[in-house]
């Protein structure tokens, strides 16, 4: 094979060499040469989205459900600016994606040409790294480097901006050489610190594992090692929203999710523990609540591949910079070689305390009245889809928290949600990316009606590619989380937080060629969910739920973990003082 080819062909060749099978994109003037090459090959399937934001979220969904990098291809100017939300989302959640953008030809850059935008300038703060390629000979090397950077260390989004003349010109293609990059983040943890942690494990009386998305990003082996570590020590484990599935929800040591809408037992354990072992989480403000009151009496260990995460928010006693799987492997080795000791008596007492908190049964609810309660909808969805090869996406808001609380995740890479950025409109395109990677799986996007409308155009994509994604919309005709905060913080003045002039979702689905189901009676819910599961094609499920339901438990902002609001709590004046300025 000759190594001389056009820049456009190099793009396709590099994607093939990197093992890419699917690209999500939208054509335009500045990427036409690349689209021409895509037309003339059969290795890569291109998925035509309906909006560039959808392409990036779909690539994220693909990446999160497979552990492989996701790829999006968009044009210059508006194509690139529409990709910005997805890039920021991927940066916050450390998702490896490669976004390729077309650019006006090099000789027109800076002239305010048609569909010109300073793409690398705009995306510099929302990518892990980005490149503008001005020479066709440098293109293949840059593309391989882009994959390397996206996947190495703390994963993240990268962008390669390719001017149209660079796509047309001929240059020399160079195959991938991963060792060529100077970017080689440290993966092995410092053994002294790991030994210090092993010693702390031996003497802890009230330990807890606090795990995050880093466990998922580290690969399936990391989840396996976590399970081994939890089983061997008998310590309780909780997880952030991002880390659900790393430890199975059915596992004995599972306390459920922690944080603002986390479980009572998880948050109380975090507050009262004497040894906190943070594995691949970043002490996000949704987790810590007020920093002054965060787990005041614990020794804290923090395993993170990103040195800047350590001591950023919470001062830790045992910092370990490294990849979760590598560090856990070493930790297990060290701890076992020292005699695999724990303070069994102390830990048993700790479990007794935890079980008292568990008995509060903070997620309990009663399905009463004529309307479906959203918790009930989630519980039934869980019961009826549990045995399936299932992937769950969500949008952002109350429904997202209910999904995290009531759905159980047994394995990593099964849960796709916008954690850090909180992007409404994420779930629908993400579900398309997931279904592209797992054609026979049951892919459900748990949505709110307002979030779903933000990227509902992607239903066209689902129809075109015969992707049987299920859009399960908890429709309360409200921006539920906004409404809840207005109830808590703004004297029940519900400013702009109801969804007026909503479409008829069944007719909307049918207009796209999908199936629409509406359900409002609790008695019909199971049958309706079964109908959704059994339909071979995309479904929009309009689940009309109780309109003024609040999402509990909740740590009001400005309050510590042990001052949670439980169901039916008095909400007036729950947030005061400095808490009110926090989001």
């Amino acid at each position: 094979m000759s190594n001389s080819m056009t820049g456009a062909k190099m793009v396709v060749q590099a994607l093939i060499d990197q093992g890419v099978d699917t690209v999500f994109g939208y054509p335009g003037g500045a990427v036409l040469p690349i689209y021409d090459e895509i037309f003339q090959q059969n290795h890569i399937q291109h998925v035509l989205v309906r909006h560039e934001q959808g392409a990036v979220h779909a690539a994220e969904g693909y990446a999160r459900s497979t552990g492989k990098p996701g790829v999006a291809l968009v044009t210059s100017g508006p194509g690139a600016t529409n990709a910005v939300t997805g890039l920021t989302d991927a940066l916050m959640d450390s998702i490896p994606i490669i976004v390729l953008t077309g650019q006006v030809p090099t000789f027109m850059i800076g002239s305010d040409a048609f569909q010109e935008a300073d793409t690398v300038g705009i995306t510099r703060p929302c990518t892990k790294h980005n490149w503008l390629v001005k020479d066709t000979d440098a293109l293949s090397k840059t593309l391989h480097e882009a994959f390397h950077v996206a996947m190495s260390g703390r994963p993240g989004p990268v962008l390669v901006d390719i001017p149209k003349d660079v796509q047309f010109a001929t240059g020399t293609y160079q195959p991938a050489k991963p060792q060529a990059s100077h970017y080689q983040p440290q993966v092995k943890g410092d053994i002294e610190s790991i030994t210090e942690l092993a010693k702390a494990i031996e003497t802890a009386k009230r330990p807890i594992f606090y795990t995050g998305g880093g466990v998922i990003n580290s690969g399936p082996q990391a989840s396996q090692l976590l399970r081994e570590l939890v089983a061997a020590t008998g310590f309780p484990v909780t997880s952030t929203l991002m880390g659900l599935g790393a430890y199975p929800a059915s596992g004995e040591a599972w306390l459920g999710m922690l944080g603002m809408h986390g479980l009572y037992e998880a948050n109380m354990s975090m507050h009262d523990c004497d040894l906190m072992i943070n594995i691949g989480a970043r002490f996000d403000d949704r987790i810590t609540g007020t920093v002054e009151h965060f787990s005041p009496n614990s020794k804290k260990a923090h395993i993170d591949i990103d040195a800047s995460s350590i001591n950023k928010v919470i001062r830790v006693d045992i910092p370990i910079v490294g990849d979760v799987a590598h560090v856990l492997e070493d930790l297990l080795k060290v701890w076992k070689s020292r005699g695999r000791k724990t303070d069994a008596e102390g830990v048993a007492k700790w479990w007794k305390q935890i079980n008292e908190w568990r008995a509060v049964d903070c997620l309990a609810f009663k399905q009463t009245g004529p309307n479906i309660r959203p918790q009930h909808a989630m519980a039934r969805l869980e019961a009826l889809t549990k045995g399936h090869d299932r992937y769950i996406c969500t949008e952002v808001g109350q429904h997202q928290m209910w999904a995290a609380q009531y759905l159980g995740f047994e394995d990593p890479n099964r849960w796709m949600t916008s954690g850090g950025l909180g992007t409404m409109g994420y779930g629908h395109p993400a579900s398309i990316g997931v279904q592209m990677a797992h054609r026979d799986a049951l892919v459900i996007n748990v949505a709110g009606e307002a979030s779903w409308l933000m990227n509902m155009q992607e239903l066209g994509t689902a129809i075109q590619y015969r992707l049987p994604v299920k859009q399960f919309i908890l429709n309360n005709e409200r921006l539920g989380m906004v409404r809840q905060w207005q109830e808590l913080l703004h004297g029940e003045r519900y400013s702009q937080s109801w969804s007026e002039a909503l479409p008829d979702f069944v007719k909307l689905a049918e207009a796209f060629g999908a199936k629409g189901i509406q359900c409002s009676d609790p008695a019909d819910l199971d049958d309706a969910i079964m109908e959704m599961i059994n339909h071979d094609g995309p479904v929009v499920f309009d689940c009309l739920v109780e309109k003024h339901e609040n999402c509990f438990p909740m740590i009001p902002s400005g309050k510590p973990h042990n001052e949670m609001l439980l169901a039916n709590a008095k909400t007036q004046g729950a947030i005061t003082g400095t808490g009110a300025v926090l989001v």
Partner: protein
Amino acid sequence: MSALNIKKGSTSHSAYNLRPNYSDTEERHTLAVIVENEPGVLARVIGLFSGRGYNIESLTVAEIDHEGHRSRITIVTSGTPQVIAQITAQLGRIVSVHNVYDLTVEGASVERELALFKVSGKGNDRIEAIRLADIFRANVVDSTLESFIFEITGTPEKIDAFADLMRPLGLEEVARTGVAALSRGAHALP
């Protein structure tokens, strides 16, 4: 402790400072940042400081190794020890940054800045200006019958002191390069 050398008591710097301060003492640190000499690298470094709300007191940048595509950025910044540790770690994760050295932490270092001063005046002021320039070992690099341009090299404090003295004598304009710094001794940064 790990090789990271993260100080105890570190926390975050935030624009919304609701977080506890483990140490309130603001320190002035000089950082040497070795970067890949490529387009946009300075924007990445500056964007980090503006985006996360850190201070820049002075910043200088120039290529130091043409063959190896390396530039050296010298940044003088201030903040609590926790903030300084965050700045160092955040700089370190930029893909085009090869190494970050906190010269203030790593031992004694030499800091120099170059400045040009335009001073205009007549009679005694003019004589006094050139007398002081001599004391400060400043060179005259341009001269007319009514003005001088002095070139002075030294620590930022020395240049500040010279500026204070020139001000009443007819200081018109100043250009400063910002600080360049190297650690003392035979040992070179890797």
